[in-house]
């Protein structure tokens, strides 16, 4: 088990800067992020976009800001669990916490800081009656093990890159692949789209355009899907339906931790950005309070105040005396 003072969920800019503020107060941090790299949405979504509202930087590219933050927190030796999602959290009798990730990593921490930003990106689901009933019984939102689909009848839905790529891949694995798309053309990579259209012409796959999924049939397992093509209804027998409608940010397992939630954000006290559970804080884009602004610089401020308050859980017997870095410098661990 990993042991630390503060476990930070989310390694975006605000999570990273928390390590610095915690380090000044001699508190050690461990960061967990569902993405395989640090930086959160800055690195994942817009690494090359310039940001103009970081104090002291008239312009800084998103990835540069992340790289600078990593440099800034280096003296405090933070540790990382990347590519894993925190699933569960248990509060111990002494008030400390154990966090369990999707890959069964366990982290023991005195304080938990949720800096989860937009949340976790989860597959966007089509609105179909009985969808939940068929999840894992024929409805899959990602292709983890292509072998599962060998010699099966597969229906994929969507028009983006992943729908096109998996259609091309599964065409060689499955007994039959049908791609259902709502419009007439694809916005995914043009050469993948061309290949898909070619395969359909050769009769190797079925392409159903201008179509919307309308229903699922089956008892214990999916047997068929129904769809409507310009008003006409159609039924396709299938062992699996793979809807690939991209990812949408959701709060994820955090929603089940008995925290006060308002419109997908964690409610906090602006005194110290604490949640309703003592020892758990929420900072950055994932929290909400009257006047909340989703800005990186606001998240930095929240991180600083949070650490002043978290100190009492990490060092219950010590009195905190505030020191400036200009006076004291940065004392590495």
């Amino acid at each position, binding site marked *: 088990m990993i042991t630390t003072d503060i476990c930070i969920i989310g390694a975006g800019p605000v999570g990273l800067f928390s390590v610095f503020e915690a380090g000044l107060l001699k508190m050690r941090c461990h960061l967990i992020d569902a993405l395989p790299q640090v930086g959160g*949405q800055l690195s994942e*979504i*817009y690494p090359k976009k310039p940001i103009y509202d970081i104090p002291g930087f008239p312009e800084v590219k998103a990835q540069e800001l992340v790289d600078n933050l990593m440099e800034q927190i280096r003296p405090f030796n933070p540790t990382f669990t990347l590519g894993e999602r925190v699933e569960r959290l248990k509060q111990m009798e002494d008030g400390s916490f154990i966090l369990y990730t999707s890959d069964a990593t366990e982290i023991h921490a005195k304080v938990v800081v949720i800096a989860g930003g*937009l*949340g976790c990106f989860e597959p*966007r*689901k*089509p*609105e179909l009656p009985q969808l939940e009933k068929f999840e894992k019984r024929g409805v899959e939102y990602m292709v983890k093990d292509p072998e599962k689909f060998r010699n099966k009848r597969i229906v994929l*839905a*969507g*028009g*983006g890159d992943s729908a096109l790529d998996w259609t091309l891949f599964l065409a060689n694995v499955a007994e039959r692949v049908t791609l259902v798309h*709502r*419009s007439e053309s694809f*916005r995914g990579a043009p050469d993948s789209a061309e290949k898909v259209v070619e395969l359909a012409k050769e009769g190797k796959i079925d392409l159903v355009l201008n179509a919307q*999924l309308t229903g699922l049939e089956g008892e214990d397992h999916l047997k068929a899907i129904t769809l409507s093509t310009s008003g006409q209804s159609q039924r396709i027998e299938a062992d699996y339906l793979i*809807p690939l*409608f*991209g990812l*949408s*940010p959701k709060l994820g397992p955090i929603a089940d931790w008995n925290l006060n939630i308002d*419109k*997908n954000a964690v409610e906090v006290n602006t005194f110290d950005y604490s949640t309703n559970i003592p020892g758990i804080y929420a900072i950055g*884009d994932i929290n909400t309070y009257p006047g909340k602004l*989703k800005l990186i610089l606001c998240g930095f401020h929240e991180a600083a105040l949070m650490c002043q308050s978290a100190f009492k859980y990490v060092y219950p017997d010590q009195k905190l005396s505030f020191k400036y870095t200009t006076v004291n410098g940065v004392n590495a661990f």
Partner: protein
Amino acid sequence: MVQFSVIDEQGMTHPVEAPADMGLSLMEILKASDYPVLATCGGMALCATCHVEFTEGLERLPEANDAELDMIDTLPNAVNASRLACQIRIGEHLQNAVIRLRGDGN
């Protein structure tokens, strides 16, 4: 000021008035008017929680850019008149438009 109508999830139509000269987006106005628009991504065409359908007035809008079209194309409930409110500036082109909320407001 620009006047347009919003059809909420219950199918009720409400008149909305917004200033055309403040550089606001339709998403910002909807959010400020307390419609259930999460705008999780803050206006970067990433989350589609501000997905709307223009039942009237689509033809007067500037064309959607690639980022917006790519995102709309991934939505299971997209229709031909789908747009992302965060990518639409409040302006005279919205006068008398009728906008149905389609985003995931949970």
